[in-house]
């Protein structure tokens, strides 16, 4: 059988069956052996128990999204597995591994005619009580992919060493037995050898990358209120910030967490908080305060299904409106959307840089599909920017904290600086920060806060622009990688398609966008929302080609590369 360049594996089972551990270990073993890949999780709402799926894609080249279909479906059990209808679709020629004692796989996942390989999990664990079913399944999956036994053994050791040699040995035996049980189809989805991966290999999730980006950008204070799917950012920062001289505090709610970071940043320390939609909603008033008082802060929103509590564990791109417009009054601020798991690092570092440079709040608009996806990659390159806040040091009386003129960014006195005493205020104020309700001062300060953000030169990072031709796909956030894969397929068919994905959503960049769209006759907008929020946003701020169509759908069903590809290749009308 021909070796493959990309293989997708779905492992399903009820909670407690070790599904996510199995997926993670498969990814780690592949990463150790030099392949690239990623793993996304899909879980039900239960805290423990309930259904879980580990969606793993392994490839010879770096990949940024799940594939359309699954080549190998492994059922540790099939309890509640039918809930993944639509999320797991089998590819032609796929194989399902199933324990005969667990009954047949649900037809919504494995329609009649699907090739099923039996793996007697219950029987094996009964005969060998120290073996765990998920380790047997791991061994079986690894054997089909042609994964090196040694890489698997190393990962097992890494995971279970602390539990003692007995557990390590039992797990090694269990994986070997699992592999042997599927010997008939060994190598059915053998991956081509990895491209020589040079440098260090990393396993990192989007949420961890976000935390690392913040630290690289100079953040040294975080305030936290837990929420799915953002908590891992905070839980990564909690032990790591102190290592670089910073600190994290758990707040009593999001009203507190955002006000804490405003206070810390006012004190001169770059600060961050992370949340999801419900928390971002609570933070609106204080985000306006940060704009008015000109305090740099970074707020990460890892989007999940909404409105209200919505679907906490699954992705959607529906906080765009609240991130962009969700403030009373005129409150210019920055909204930056990471485009891949590793781009969470760059985007958060950039957002921190911009917040500090522009003395304004920045929102990083990530989502569950980025935050909770783990990728196996080569170490991301360093980027050098660390924001340097313009501070007042030599102060001539009277100090004007909100002085007009220049770029609009005025020197900020950090408490402790002699002669710089001022009162930061959310009330409309004069250049000295003294409250006023005068029309002239109000207009002048609105102009100042708008101009400093509008006039800044954001450079090439404002958007990802790839390819040329008269057809373009415009998308954002986690769908960027999906669109890129679809475009590559279209190009292979000889259809030239551009990719336009703004990383900087606010402030809008009309001149740059017009240049990016120059020559585009047909545009396909792609987004994960029910009301086409992104398309409405684009229409409000940019001039789009007459022939523009929109591919949009709410979460949690991810948009797949093939859907975009089909739209691109449908001929004349998109």
């Amino acid at each position, binding site marked *: 059988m021909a070796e493959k360049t990309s293989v997708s594996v779905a492992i399903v089972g009820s909670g407690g069956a070790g599904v996510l551990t199995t997926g993670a270990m498969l990814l780690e073993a592949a990463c150790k052996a030099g392949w690239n890949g990623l793993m996304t999780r899909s879980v039900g709402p239960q805290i423990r128990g309930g259904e879980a799926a580990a969606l793993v894609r392994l490839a010879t080249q770096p990949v940024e999204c799940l594939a359309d279909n699954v080549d190998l479906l492994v059922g540790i059990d099939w309890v509640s597995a039918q809930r993944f209808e639509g999320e797991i679709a089998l590819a032609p020629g796929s194989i399902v591994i199933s324990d005969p004692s667990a009954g047949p796989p649900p037809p919504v996942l494995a329609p009649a005619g699907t090739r099923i390989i039996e793996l007697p999990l219950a029987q094996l664990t009964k005969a060998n009580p120290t073996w765990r079913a998920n380790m047997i399944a791991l061994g079986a999956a690894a054997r089909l992919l042609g994964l090196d036994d040694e890489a698997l053994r190393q990962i097992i050791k890494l995971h279970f060493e602390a539990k003692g040699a007995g557990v390590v040995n039992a797990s090694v035996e269990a994986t070997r037995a699992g592999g042997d049980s599927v010997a008939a189809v060994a190598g059915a989805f053998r991956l081509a050898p990895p491209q020589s991966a040079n440098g260090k290999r990393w396993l990192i999730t989007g949420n961890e990358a976000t935390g690392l980006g913040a630290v690289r950008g100079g953040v040294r204070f975080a305030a936290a209120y837990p929420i799915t799917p953002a908590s891992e950012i905070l839980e990564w920062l909690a032990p790591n910030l102190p290592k670089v*001289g910073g600190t994290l505090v758990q707040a009593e709610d999001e009203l507190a967490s955002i006000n804490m970071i405003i206070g810390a940043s006012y004190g001169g320390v770059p600060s961050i908080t992370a949340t999801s939609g419900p928390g971002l909603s609570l933070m609106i008033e204080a985000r306006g305060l940060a704009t008015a008082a000109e305090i740099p802060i970074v707020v990460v929103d890892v989007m999940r299904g909404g409105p209200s509590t919505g679907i906490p564990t699954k992705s959607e791109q529906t906080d765009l409106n609240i991130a962009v417009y969700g403030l009373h009054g005129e409150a210019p601020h920055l909204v930056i959307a990471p485009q891949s798991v590793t781009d969470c690092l760059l985007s958060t570092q950039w957002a921190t840089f911009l917040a500090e440079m522009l003395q304004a709040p920045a929102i990083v608009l990530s989502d569950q599909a980025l935050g909770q996806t783990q990728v196996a990659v080569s170490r991301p390159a360093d980027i050098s920017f660390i924001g340097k806040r313009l501070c007042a040091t030599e102060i001539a009386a009277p100090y004007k904290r909100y002085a007009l003129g220049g770029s609009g960014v005025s020197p900020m006195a950090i408490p402790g600086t002699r002669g710089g005493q001022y*009162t930061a205020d959310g009330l409309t104020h004069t250049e000295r920060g003294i409250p006023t309700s005068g029309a002239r001062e109000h207009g002048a300060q609105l102009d100042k806060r708008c101009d400093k953000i509008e006039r800044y030169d954001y450079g090439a990072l404002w958007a990802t622009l790839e390819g040329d031709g008269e057809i373009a796909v415009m998308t954002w956030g986690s769908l960027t990688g999906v669109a890129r894969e679809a475009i590559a397929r279209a190009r292979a068919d000889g259809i030239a398609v551009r990719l336009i994905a703004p990383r900087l959503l606010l402030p809008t960049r009309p001149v740059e966008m017009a240049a990016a769209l120059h020559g585009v006759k047909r545009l396909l907008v792609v987004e994960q929302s029910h009301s086409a929020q992104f398309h409405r946003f684009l229409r409000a701020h940019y001039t789009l080609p007459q022939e523009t169509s929109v591919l949009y759908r709410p979460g949690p069903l991810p948009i797949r590369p093939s859907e975009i590809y089909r739209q691109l290749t449908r001929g004349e009308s998109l």
Partner: protein
Amino acid sequence: MSATAPLACKPGDYKSETKPIWCPGCGDYHVLMSLTRAMATLGLPPEQIAVISGIGCSSRIPAYTSCYGFHGVHGRSLPLAAGLKIVRPDLAVIVASGDGDGYSIGGNHFLHACRRNVDLTYLVMDNHIYGMTKGQPSPTTEPDFDTALTPGGSGVRPFNPLVIALASGANFVARAYSGNPLETANLIVEAVRHPGFSFIEILSPCVTYRPDQRAWKDLVHSAPVEATDDAARAARRLMTDDGFNLGVLFRGNRAPYRPATDAAPCDQIELEKGFEI
């Protein structure tokens, strides 16, 4: 040191030129006087002091000092101040609030500030009314007090912020009356010096919406007993007193909040090791 000792710095050094918006006769003028006097006694340079507030007549106080200030949003002064103090332990951070700002919209933060015990000084100018929004009942307003929003009274029982502070873990609890500025200044000095979260409830009349509070000057009196370090005893006293006992009521000895920081910070690159495989 007491506020009546000779001062190296003058209270006037801690006043700004900004003219208060307060009504003539408002109790908050006296609180400002007490605050600047306390600062002078403490002898800290104005740039080493930060005064943080929310929204309300009382919350206007930061800009009337010559210190660093933050006039934030309604009810959120305590978390903002905690964030500042945690990253800048070198500053003296004083939080100013009102009974609406601190006990109603900011009530949750009050509980957690007491629990967390960050080294802050919390001054609540309690006039049993929302002054700034023109006279609606607050959590300390009497149930039969008639207002436009609650004709005939709210019918809702007021709460006792001092008892709540004790139950939640505040490390220093006192009651003051704005009309006794020297005594109030002394209490502020002691509160700033006391480690952890120090809370002073300052009875500060609203002459405009609560003219009846002019009678407070005849009702207030010194607490008849010494402060205790037993929170339960202090709470029992407070639940049975007449609400006009002044002075320090509780001095705790709980260690203030300490953020988790490593003694020897490492290079950022070290953090990346966790991702290597």
